[in-house]
């Protein structure tokens, strides 16, 4: 499986946050969320730039002239129009007789990208799909919102999905519930509510400051949603593929934060030895966490050829999805 990723150079570590927010207990926060540093995109560096760099990294091991479709998952496009995937085609120097489009999803995005890539290949529409997930939530977060600045990091991952006799993408289980839209949202800046420079700041009980021009996340509501949906998602994915828990060699979930992911692991009953948890040096990179984790697992031989891996993404939308892949 060809995966690579790119993380921007600038680092935001816990020591810096502790200096900026007196009273912010770096040790306690690390203990709870499992993050010690995050990579942050530069002022003029966008998700498209990260996507370009992640794709360039994966092309070190793949002939880019074979790519016949680009799927770019991002919620941070350069423009309303044109489509970032089209600009990416040109910047990467890919053929022009290929398809390309963006899709707007967050933490579930990698799963949906794989589902679409599989559909394109099985349908005979494409042979080699470049799936890129690229996100820069840092640009949406208010500078005085220490909670969200602690959790999210920027990054991009690129994967080549091709026809293969060995590697397989099995059946998907997907879910959507837009009634949760207000629990993770950037209210202003789209066409429903335009960016408002006069927006008043909102202070929460923990001292975070934000306003409707910036990202809002209701952490407890998101946690509650995952408790309700993710165990069911995993069992339905196993059932759909006629697999038992014990037949899965490894589980890689969206790396949201340590507390949430650990609780899901315990609730579902996944052994520690089969479960990946590592966001210490990246933070929550939204749609890039799963491919980053897969690459790290492959590099560290936590996952090896022939393994069956259940991957699951869940979050903003609400949107969720899971699938079993055979490496």
């Amino acid at each position, binding site marked *: 499986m060809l995966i690579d990723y790119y993380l921007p150079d600038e680092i935001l570590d816990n020591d810096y946050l502790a200096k900026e927010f007196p009273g912010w207990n770096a040790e306690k926060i690390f203990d*709870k969320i499992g993050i010690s540093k995050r990579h942050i995109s530069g002022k003029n560096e966008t998700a498209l730039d990260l996507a370009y760099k992640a794709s360039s990294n994966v092309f070190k091991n793949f002939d880019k002239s074979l790519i016949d479709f680009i799927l770019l998952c991002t919620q941070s496009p350069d423009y309303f129009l044109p489509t970032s995937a089209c600009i990416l085609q040109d910047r990467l120097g890919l053929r022009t007789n290929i398809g390309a489009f963006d899709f707007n999803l967050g933490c579930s995005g990698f799963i949906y990208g794989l589902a679409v890539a599989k559909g394109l290949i099985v349908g005979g529409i494409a042979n080699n799909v470049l799936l890129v997930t690229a996100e820069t939530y840092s640009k949406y977060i208010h500078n005085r919102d220490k*909670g969200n600045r602690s959790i999210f990091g920027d990054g991009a991952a690129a994967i080549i999905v091709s026809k293969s006799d060995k590697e397989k993408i099995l059946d998907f289980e997907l879910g959507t519930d837009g009634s949760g839209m207000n629990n993770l949202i950037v209210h202003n800046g789209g066409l429903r509510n335009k960016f408002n420079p006069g927006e008043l700041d909102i202070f929460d*009980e*923990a001292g975070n400051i934000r306003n409707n021009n910036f990202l809002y996340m*209701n*952490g*407890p*509501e998101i*946690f*509650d949603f995952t*408790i309700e949906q993710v165990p069911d998602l995993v069992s339905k994915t196993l059932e759909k593929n006629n697999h038992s828990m014990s037949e899965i060699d490894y589980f890689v979930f969206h790396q949201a934060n340590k*507390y*949430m992911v650990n*609780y899901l692991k315990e*609730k579902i009953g996944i052994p520690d030895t089969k479960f990946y948890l590592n966001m210490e040096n990246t933070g929550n990179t939204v749609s890039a966490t799963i491919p980053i984790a897969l690459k790290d697992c492959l590099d560290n031989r936590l996952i090896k050829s022939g393994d069956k891996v259940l991957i699951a993404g869940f979050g903003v939308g609400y949107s969720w999805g899971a699938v079993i892949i055979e490496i």
Partner: protein
Amino acid sequence: MKKETFFEGLKDIFEIDNDLEESTHLHLTSLSTLALIAYLDKNFKTRIKVAQISNINTVSDLMKLIGEDNFE
């Protein structure tokens, strides 16, 4: 669940050193709310909405929300 066991659980979640009483105020932060949601999910069958949890002030409020017949 025995009240004593429940109170011990709450002391851990809210990092309270002193003994709890039903009138003790519970300071809800984002992290303590997450821990409380996990605790309730693990120990009680009643599903409580997050919006209801955010309205509690005291141990007693929380017990009423869970349902007092869940305690010995």
